[in-house]
C-alpha cells in the first residue's frame, strides 16, 4: 500500500507515458549476487493515487525476474515512447505479485497490437513488432509496486534528473 500522505511523483504526462501503448517498457530486478536481470513489460496502469503502478509480464519470459523477486522486492521500470524517445524510469522497493484481472489480460494483448501498428508507422515491420511484443494470454501475470523514485530518462540534458513531485 502507498504510504498515506506521500507525495505522488507522477504528473499527467508521466502517467500517460507509462500507460501508453506506444511506449516500450522493461522491468529490472536485482538477481542473485547483485546481478540485475530484466524482461519486457506489457500493459501498465497507474492507480488513482498516482503512486501504485501495475505492470503485466509474460510469466515464462519473466522466469529469472520471478526468481529474483523471491529475495528482493526492489524494482525498476523504464518506459520509452518509441516515436519521441521520451523516457521515464520508475523505482520501487515493494514489488509484489497481484492477481491478474481480465482487463489486464485484454490490455496486455491490446498493447502488442497497438505497439505493432504504431511501430509500422515508424518504419518497423508490423508482423515483426507484433511478434516482438506479444504477451501470450495464458502467460499473463501482474506485478505491483509503489513509485518511490522517478527519473527523466529522455536522451538529452535533463536525462537522469529526478521527476519533481506534484501535488
Amino acid at each position, binding site marked *: 500500500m502507498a504510504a498515506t500522505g506521500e507525495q505522488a511523483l507522477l504528473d499527467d504526462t508521466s502517467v500517460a507515458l507509462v500507460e501508453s501503448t506506444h511506449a*516500450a517498457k*522493461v*522491468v*529490472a*530486478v*536485482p*538477481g542473485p*549476487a*547483485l*546481478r*540485475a*536481470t*530484466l*524482461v*519486457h513489460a506489457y500493459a501498465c496502469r497507474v492507480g488513482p493515487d498516482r503512486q501504485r503502478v501495475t505492470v503485466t509480464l*509474460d510469466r*515464462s*519470459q519473466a522466469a*529469472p525476474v520471478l526468481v529474483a523477486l523471491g529475495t*528482493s522486492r*526492489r*524494482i*525498476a*521500470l*523504464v518506459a*520509452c515512447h518509441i516515436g519521441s*524517445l521520451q*523516457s521515464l*524510469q520508475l*523505482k520501487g522497493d515493494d514489488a509484489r505479485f497481484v492477481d491478474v484481472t481480465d482487463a489486464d489480460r485484454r490490455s496486455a494483448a491490446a498493447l502488442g497490437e497497438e505497439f505493432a501498428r504504431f511501430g509500422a508507422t515508424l*518504419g*518497423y*515491420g508490423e*508482423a*515483426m*513488432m*507484433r*511478434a*516482438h*511484443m*506479444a504477451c*501470450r494470454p495464458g502467460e499473463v501475470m501482474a506485478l505491483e509496486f509503489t513509485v518511490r523514485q522517478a*527519473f527523466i*530518462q529522455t*536522451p*538529452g540534458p535533463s*536525462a*537522469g534528473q529526478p521527476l519533481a513531485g506534484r501535488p
Partner: protein
Amino acid sequence: MTLTLDAIRPCFEGAIPSAIATCDPDGTPNVSYLSQVEYVDAGHVALSFQFFNTTRRNILANPQATVLVSHPVTGANFRLTVDYLRTETDGPLFERMKAKLAGVASHEGMAGIFRLRGSDVYQVREIEAIPGQYLAEPPPRRNLLAATRACSGRLSACTDLATLLDETLAGLEAHLGIHHAMLLMHDAAGRRLYTVATRGYERSGVGSEIALGDGVIGVAAAEFTPIRIGFMTPEYAYGRAVRESTQASGLAGMLETEIPFPGLAEPHSQLAVPILAIGRLIGVLYVESSEDLHFGYDDEDALVAVAGQLGMAISLMQSAHEPADETVDGLAPAVGKSGPAVVVRHFVENDSVFLGDEYLIKGVAGAIFWRLVSEFVERQRTEFTNRELRLDPRLRLPDIVDNLEARLILLERRLNEHKACVRLAKTGRGRFRLVVKRPLTLVDVPRSA
C-alpha cells in the same frame, strides 16, 4: 543447443534498441535503453558509453549486468549475461561504434545528443533465448559463402591490375547484388585515397580523393577496420569530407582540381572495408545502398574476405618483377596529329595538369603525364616502360610501394573519360604507348612565390 553470439548478430544492428539492467552495491536496480550493442567477437560485445549516468556508476561499482537484445526480423528476444571488462576511447572498435552511432542518432533525430564517449567491452557469460511467439527467419537473400567463392574465383583468374579492379566490382554486383561500389588506392605520402574503379554511378569519379580519417572511407583506412553505417548521416557524408580535405590542402579557390566524388547523394547504408596485405594498407573497398540497414555483419564478413584476397593479389602484382630494362625509345608512330594544337598546362605547385581548359589529373599521376608528354614533345618518344617511370626521381614515387600501376590505370581512365587527344595503350607487361592525336603545346607553370 547452446546459443552463440554470432548466431544472433542481427540483434546488434541497432534496428531495435537494446536495454541494460545493472545494480548498485546496495541492491537498487537500474534499467535503461542502449543506443548500441556491437558484436566484437564470439565472446564479447561492446556497449556504447554516451552519458555519465546511473548505468555508468553502477557498472563501475558492480561490473555485472544483463542485456536484453531483439532480432530485427523475427522479433525474438534474448538475455545476455555480461561482465564489464574495459572502456576503449579510441582505436578500431571505438571508431566503428562512433560511425554506427552517428547513423543511429541521425535516424532517431538525436544528432548532437548521442555522442560516443567510449566503447564498453563486456564478456558474454550466457545467452538465453526468451520464449515467445516469434516469426520464423526467412531464407537469406543469397548464400553469402557461395557468392564469396564465386567472387574469389573471378579474382584468381586476373593477370593484370586493371582487370583485377574491374572484376572485383563486377563480381560484387553479379554474386552479391551490390550495385554501387568503388575501389580506392592508398597514397601513403599524401595521406589520402584516390578512386581507381567504380561501378553503378552516373559519373565514374575516377581520380576523386578522400583524406585519411574523413568519412566512412577515410576512417576505415586510418583505423584498418571496416566501418558500416545503417542509416543516412551527414556526419559521415562525402560532400563534407571532400570539401574539408580541399580546404586543408590550401588549394581551395586556387584551381578547380577537385574531381567530384561519385557516391550516392543520400546513402542510407555504407560499408567501407580496408584492403590490407602483409600488414599494410593497400586501399579501401566501399559499397553503399539507398536502403536503410542494407548491409549486415555477414555482408561485412564476405567483403572482408574479398578485400583480403584483393589485397594479396594487388600486393603480388606490385612486387612482380617487370622485364629487365630494355631501353624503349620508340619514336612517334604514324599517328595522325591533325587539328589545332592543344595546350597542356602543368602546375608545379601540385602537379595538376589541364588539357586546354579542362582539369585532367594532379599529384603523382599528373607528374607522370607531364613527363610522358614532355618526352613526346621534346624527343618524339611514344613507347615507355613502367620501370623507367619507377626509377625517375622527378616522379617522387615511394621507395617500397609505389602503386605505379594503379596511378597509370587512373591516368588512362581519366584520359579515356575526357575523350582526350592523348591516350595510353598497354603494349605488354610493364609497357605502354602514348597515343597522341593532336599537336601539343606544353606550358609549365612554376610554383607561385
